[in-house]
């Protein structure tokens, strides 16, 4: 399933770019991160426990930055492997100057889920994915504010 959206940050493009490319900051935006390892600038691994009311869904998530045009475009390939679920996601974001100041971000994510969780049906998964995305974006906002505060 493909989800996409636009978001405007008050911070500068550089500040937003900085957060989006700082594994540590990104870790703080992901739901239920339990551990996070940076192998090299383009390869990260996270162990997450996505909070579902029926008991969290544990996943090992490998991320690879497959394309990057500093300071406005990046594309990530994300592979999540958990018992009961396999997730494949390709996500990209494009930054531009917002008309009335700040930075505009257009993002899209193509999410593919397989395994028993997949068999729970998109009826359930689509709202869950949307919701997780909203939480990531809110957290991102927070991180960007924090970063631009530090800057």
């Amino acid at each position, binding site marked *: 399933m493909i989800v996409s959206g636009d978001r405007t940050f008050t911070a500068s493009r550089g500040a937003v770019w900085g957060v989006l490319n700082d594994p540590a900051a990104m870790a703080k935006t992901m739901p239920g991160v339990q551990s996070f390892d940076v192998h090299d600038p383009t390869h990260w691994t996270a162990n997450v426990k996505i909070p579902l009311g029926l008991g969290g869904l544990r996943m090992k998530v490998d991320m690879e930055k497959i394309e990057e045009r500093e300071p406005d475009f990046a594309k990530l390939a994300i592979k999540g492997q958990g*018992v009961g679920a*396999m997730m*494949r996601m390709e996500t990209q974001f494009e930054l531009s100057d917002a008309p009335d100041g700040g930075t505009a971000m257009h993002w899209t994510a193509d999410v*593919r889920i*397989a*395994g*028993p969780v*997949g*068999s729970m*049906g*998109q009826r359930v998964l689509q709202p869950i994915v949307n919701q997780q995305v909203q939480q990531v974006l809110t957290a991102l906002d927070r991180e960007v504010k924090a970063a631009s505060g530090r800057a």
Partner: protein
Amino acid sequence: MTSTTVAPEQVEVGKAWSGQSVPRKEDKRLVQGQGVFVDDIKRHGMGYLHFVRSPYAHAHITSIDVSKAEELPGVYGTLTGEEVAALTDPFFQISSAPGANVKDFSLAVGKVRFVGEAIVAVVAETRELARDASELVEIEYEPIDAVVDARRARDPGVPTIHEDAGGNLMWHGVYEWGDLDAAFAEADRVVKIDQLHFHRFNSTPLECDGALVEFNKGTGQWTIHTNNQFPGFAAIMMGPAMRTGLDRLRFVTQDIGGGFGNKITSHPQLVVCCLLARKLGRPIQWTEWRTDFHLSMSHGNERWFLDTEVAVKSDGTLLGFRTKALDDAGAWLRYEPLGGVIWAQVTPGMYKWRNIRVDFTQVATNKAPVSPNRGYSRMQHLWFTERVIDIVAHELDLDPVEVRKRNYIKVEDMPYETPNGCVYDSGDYAQMLDIGLELVDHANIDQRRADAQTRGKLLGVGIGSTLDSGTNNFGQSRMINPELQFSGNNEVATVKLDIFGEIVVTLGTTPQGQGHETTAAQVVADILKCSVDDVNVRAGHDSYWNSHAGFSGTYASQFAVTGLSAVKGATEMLAAEIKKLAGAVFGGVPEEALELADGTVRIKDNPEAALPFMACGAIINANNAGLPEDLGVTLNCRYVYRPPFQVPDVERKFGNLTLTYATQIHVAVIEIDPETGYYDIVDYAAVDDCGKRINPQIVEGQVMGATAQALGAAVHENFVYDEDGNLLTPNFYDYHVPHALDMPPLATGSLESPSPFTPLGTKGMGEGGGAGIHAVCAAVQDALRGHGDAIVWDSCNPYHRVWEMLNDPKGAGGTVSVTDG
């Protein structure tokens, strides 16, 4: 024991047992929870098997690591595709090239080809531990794009599923009979239908597959307790692959929780159980769960009919048709491409078409493998012919009833040879249709249509005319692959009179609810002139009983012909031996002077001179001194019934492919709520003709069951895949099978047109030919008349599709055009 007392109000004692609704012998154990189903069987020290299954539809396997799983306490061991490839040969392929080149092993080797494909087997002390351990198996994949649309499978750039076959084409053949050019030249109108789609579903027997397999190291023999419904087929698949003689594979079944064809192709899983029983030196227990079954077992053949053209006269007389059938086999050819010829048993449906061309192609896709499903392959083709009739009627504004009656094969034409050499044995289709129409009060349908309209509902009435061809001539497989050395058919029964006069019957069949123990006893009791209660028909199948032959099993609507004819033959042999023995005992009384009555053999003119069966049994088995040397009586008779078949002409694709043609005509009346697309079946009639009925109640039960499955498939049941090859209906949560509240009122009717070709006048029946699917499609089509006139082009029509057809008739998929011939 299977002895039983008959409910008197139901059975007239003294009258022939055959033809009466004798309550089933099987039921007494089944209503007490005393049936023995495969998962009920336990052995000391057995290990539970769990399969690790692919989450990807199409991927290279780059690595498999079972070490963590094997280290888990309580785990007995594992089996991988690599080991399987070393220990076994690929399964024999029925297909000619290119399908013949597919290398099919019982676990994935190097590559996975559908979601749910078994990759590794893990065996542990408990069911739970086996599954825990399967989660510790580490497998790395390189995903490949999935092929899910058969229509695109041969497009350039589409990934190849079986490199060995050099592409996704598995089998292709052209069937043509009559003179198409002449037919289209003669036609007043030509109706063109761009595409029709018969969807993927199966009968989902409530019991899934399973086995308990023991390996006897000393004899090298496996005992396979299973619910496979065609052990003869499993054996010829497994023996060569396992490099072992067939007698090393002992198949045992008792009660089977439904089969419907779906339990024919479990041989890959059975091989895995056998290999592990030998490797681990302990009994292996495998239970398939519902989601495993939906993901990986026996989907029914999904089929497209493309670029169909129908030659028709203005009055609705059908001259001929041509179409391109495209069969979606899924990832493996486990019984396929036999579906590529089985349909030809019913080539013209129930109509007098003489000019027919079917260009048949079967391709592989990244979906679960297909294999026989109730109505196997004929149902798809009969749905097509019924759709064509209704679309023609719709387009030429003719009455579907009239078009059918005008083109039906008539009772006076019987036996009727079809354009491809099949011989329809008997039947009166027009009379059956009249019975069906009366059962739904068709005379007042216009009035009822108007009433529905006032309630804001759209009423539609639809007919499903269909055939249940039974008793295969396996020679038809040569049309798929001329090198195959199969032809004819056979079934076995043994009947013996034991030392205390007990009548013991063994069958080669593997019943799954068809009541073989009861109907066999009825046939035996009529010949031996005793009570059905005195006949003990052994439950189930055991290949050690020697009461089986190469085609033994329960499939393809044939027991009433093959099974019961074998029982009749063996019982007549026994009756003759009893008389022969009695003649000698009475001091040379000729056999014609003797008769069987009340469990004795007696002298016709002197009924007091009677020898009870018990005495006969005792004399032959335990008190035989002094009997004539050349008596030649064992009271243990084995008979093999062989239907009268010839090898078909492979060049012309011509010959008699099945012995009998049971008939079903169904009529459905539905009411659609146009606001939601939701519809109710408000009236339903099922009329059946299967020749002589041994047990009318059992026959009616089969009719009801086939109807219910067809209605489920028509409205809800559908194996739907997304573009990545994920199955979206992997269990009963999203794959909705009908429950008690979903069933419409049902009226049943019947005719008895005995088959002139079978010893008992019976016809095989039970598959039903999907009549309910045809009838519901036709009823929806009828309801849409004057409400957008969309074409019903898919065999599954859930509410949302009906709503789409009402709201966007042109965009809903079906395109039809009519030109002057």
